[in-house]
């Protein structure tokens, strides 16, 4: 089988990726795997330093920055809250504050994909107190998926139960949002 990236070399590596819940199969050669960031770890073993120096070895694209972002005089992205620039971030491999995540947002997906094998979005815990409606919203979207499945499988009785649950949660979200607005 040939590499699906370069279509030249044979695919010697096989990756199964789960990206934001979707499973994809990748057949790829070692050269492309390295280039595209599939191989997160050097063959000789994992080392954070190697990982990070390899990680930030890509062209930054400050022009692709989102609205409201400030540039310093070198046309470099700079976090308005902590003052860290994107160039500094690449050098130290660390964020300066939570706001950096928004400031550098347009450049972060390739980094996260490399470090977290293709993933860019959080699917884990939502903090109990400050998470607010997020819990309910996540619950709602998974119930909606479930409803779709039930309808497709013609399990209408069960679907009716799920539909009631959805209504209930929608009401809860409504009430909470009204409460917040007050």
């Amino acid at each position, binding site marked *: 089988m040939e590499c699906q990236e370069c279509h030249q070399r044979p695919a010697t590596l096989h*990756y199964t990726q*789960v*990206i*934001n819940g979707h499973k994809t199969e990748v057949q790829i050669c070692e050269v492309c795997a390295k280039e595209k960031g599939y191989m*997160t*770890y050097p*063959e000789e*073993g*994992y080392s*954070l330093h190697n*990982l990070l120096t390899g*990680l930030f070895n890509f062209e930054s694209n400050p022009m692709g920055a989102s609205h409201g972002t400030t540039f310093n005089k070198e046309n470099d992205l700079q976090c308005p*809250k*902590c*003052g*860290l620039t994107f160039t500094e971030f690449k050098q*130290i*491999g*660390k*964020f*300066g*504050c*939570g706001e950096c*995540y*928004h400031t550098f947002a347009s450049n*972060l997906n390739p*980094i*996260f994909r490399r*470090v*977290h*094998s*293709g*993933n*860019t*979005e*959080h*699917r*884990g*815990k*939502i*903090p*109990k*107190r*400050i*998470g607010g409606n*997020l819990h309910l919203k996540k619950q709602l979207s998974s119930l909606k998926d479930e409803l779709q499945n039930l309808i497709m499988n013609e399990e209408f009785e069960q679907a009716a139960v799920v539909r009631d649950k959805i209504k209930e949660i929608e009401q809860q979200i409504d009430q909470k949002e009204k409460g917040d607005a007050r």
Partner: protein
Amino acid sequence: MTLEHFMNEAISPWMREEGPDNDIVLSSRIRLARNFADMPFPIIADQKDLEKIREFFQIEYEHTSFQDYKDLEFVSIRDLTAIEKSVLVEKHLISPLLAKKEGAAATLISENEQVSIMINEEDHIRIQLYFPGLQLTKALTKALELDDWLEEKVSYAFDETRGFLTSCPTNVGTGMRASVMMHLPALAMTKQINRMMPAINQLGLVVRGIYGEGSEALGNLFQISNQITLGKTEEHIIEDLESVVQQLIGHERKARNRILEQSGIELEDRIYRSLGVLEYSRIIESKEAARCLSNVRLGIDLGIIKNVSRNILNELMVLTQPGFLQYFAKKTLTANERDILRASLIRERLQFEK
């Protein structure tokens, strides 16, 4: 309770409890990285801000208890001597990075040493929780409850898309590092572990030696942990880690049995020689001590050596580290002096078992 309480014993109280699969798995650990929403991360923050965080934890949590984790002791790193810091690192109660920090770094440690909450390390908060044996699910449940407890008073840096925001991009999302400490002497002896490592890495997990540098794993003690923190739930991460650990346990047991069948007398010889070295030597380097301790522990697990407790490996691995030896001697020691004291402490400890 004082700091001395944590220093005097090499082995933490929770380690004395039995855990599942503890012939191979010594401990399970969950670590959660968290930050305050409205403060710059420690790498860039003003000393003033970090000091505020330190004080907040002292005022709010010193001597409080949460569930089984009683009487949290508040320890400021700047109040410790160099030797005391190394002891806490060697016991894995604080990280080497925290020990290096001047200024506002601190930690809260529960009486049973199962919980340690590091303050102003790479992130503002690093929650760390241990369980004996293979108990990742239980450790996760407890760590998340502890997390909720802290969140009652701390507004975390959290983003709907990226999850918990951390200083290092390798921790973002769940902020969770789950790890399992394993004793794999048979897989190391047969060099199988080296062949397994690339496959394990491909699954997004990392294997490394706990003691020793580079690729060597002193005492055949390995730590397996997740590398990916974004895009998977905490439960899913634990599940993937646990399944690899279960496979390693299976391979290790098989390898032990095969060695026992094919070269039982050689293995028995190796184990008893190691016991002899530990019981009688007068000077012993840490490498030799680690190798012998691993062999003796294997002998205990295979029922060849009786009447020596399993904890001998973890206990003496910690007790014979440089920091601990010097804490014991109450002064700094040369390498040779350490080797002499190490031999004497090991002899004493084995005598005590009889």
